[in-house]
């Protein structure tokens, strides 16, 4: 299947899928973080500005720390997400699916300089587009991924319908497709529901689109194990 999931095998012997984040979300997250940093500079600049040379020294150190280590700090202590990433619903993880650790985070953020070369993250963008996992150079070297963090999963509620067997044998994939359709159906518009149900019209009995839709629901209920 063509998708943007990265599959990782965990020690328990099963595979989990990490949905990868693409260049657009990542750029937006970067912009948000940049705004936040600029905001901090403005505030700090006014506060330390009145403190003379000493304040300026502190300001310079702060700029240094924020420019280089702002992402490291959040990636380590905020589950892999800077505030910008958090807003975009993405996070950094090691490419074996474990939380990003100290040195990986430092590496990927130091190498940001190389990704910015020559300007506007051109190198990083090229690297992301060439790469199957949307990794910029820093991610390649550190072995990290940026993934979508789903706060929730859509829980499909299969509408109750009298369970009903279908006359034709179905492969596992077909069964799964029918189940999925049933569970998604309450998120589809009525017209779309019927349209999709009509695709199966010769195989499913029923005189109108609505009847066909209901008998597909019946099959789904049967497959789900309701009797």
């Amino acid at each position, binding site marked *: 299947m063509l998708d943007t999931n990265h599959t990782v095998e*965990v*020690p*328990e*012997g*099963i595979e*989990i*899928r*990490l949905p990868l984040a693409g260049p657009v979300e990542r750029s937006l997250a970067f912009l948000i973080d940049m705004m936040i940093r600029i905001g901090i500079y403005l505030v700090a600049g006014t506060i330390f500005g009145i403190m*003379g*040379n*000493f304040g*300026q*020294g*502190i*300001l*310079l*150190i702060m*700029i*240094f720390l924020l*420019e*280089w280590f702002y992402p490291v700090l959040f990636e380590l202590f905020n*589950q892999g997400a800077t505030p910008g990433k958090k807003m975009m619903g993405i996070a950094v*993880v090691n490419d074996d*699916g*474990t*939380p990003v*650790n*100290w*040195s990986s985070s*430092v*590496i990927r953020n*130091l*190498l*940001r*300089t*190389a990704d910015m*070369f020559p300007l506007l993250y051109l*190198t990083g963008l090229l690297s992301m587009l060439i790469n199957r996992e949307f990794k910029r*150079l820093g991610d*390649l*070297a*550190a*072995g990290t991924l940026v993934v979508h963090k*789903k706060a929730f*999963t*859509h*829980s*499909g509620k*299969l509408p109750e319908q009298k369970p009903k067997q279908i006359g034709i044998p179905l492969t*596992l*994939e077909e*069964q*799964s497709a029918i*189940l*999925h359709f049933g*569970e998604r159906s309450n998120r589809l518009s009525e017209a779309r529901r019927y349209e999709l149900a009509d695709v199966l019209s010769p195989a499913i009995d029923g005189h109108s689109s609505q009847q066909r839709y209901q008998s597909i629901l019946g099959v789904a209920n049967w*497959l*789900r*194990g*309701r009797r």
Partner: protein
Amino acid sequence: MRQEEFEQQYRPIWQAFEENMRKFEIRAQRKELSEDDVKQIPSHYRTLCHALAIAKERQYSPYLIEHLDNLVLRGHQVIYSRRSQLRHKIIHFIAHGFPRQIQQQQSLFWLTSLIFYGPALVMFTLTVINPELIYSMVPPDQVNMFEAMYDPEARVLGRERASDTDFMMFGHYIQNNIGIGFRTFATGILFTLGSLFFLIFNGLFFGTVSAHIVNIKYNSTFFPFVIGHGSFELTAIVICGMAGIKLGWSLIAPGNLSRLDALKLATGKAILLMYGATLFLLIAAFVEAFWSSSTNLTNATKYTVGGILWLLVYGYMLWPRREASA
């Protein structure tokens, strides 16, 4: 087993697990987890993995699989997060780890030193012979700035810097010099080119400026100023370059590995060099701001201390260490 029964049988465990994860992921709520809850997590996690494997195999609803997948990922992140004894590691790294890294890669270290100091020496000699060369390397107003900075007259006139200026300069050195070090490292991933550029350029620049100072006979202010922090700073730049070249070289000549694997392996070592280099740069910034610039100290003191620092730095890096025990 039908999906319905399957869900009914396992749902309580999933829900308990999800609740535990939710608490665990928020630092403030972690305390709410009782000891029993924590003990349950691994066994629940294994049951969950088992359930996911079954659900996938039997092609249960995609939503169910996605939900379990998501839960397993959260559990995986909690159970396999790496714990490190940070303080012990840091001390061990400074005492043994960092020097050993340098020693294991001594040929690269000397080669990088040559790439940095070589052009510096050449340019120094050339500029001493032909003083006009300074203007081909450094813009005239910057030359004037350097001359003003190291003018012995200005010093004798008693331009004692207040200590708060020292602190400002400390900030400046941290921001500027460590930044240069990081850039020298990072751009090395572009097939070593970036590191080479920064090393050679800074070498040429440093050589030319030193020669110019000699030409205009400001020796008595410039060299006592640079000798103190130079030991840490110049060595750190060399090490940053070395780390960068390591990255780039792993892409040029990956050996038996794939380029990606070679890069990851090289980065693991290079970042250790960078930790050490960063420490050096911090010390350098400190010395530069609070020691080198002091006008109360005689030049003899500065030369002696500076010389000892150079010996210390090289002694620290090259003195043989015991082999890694772990």
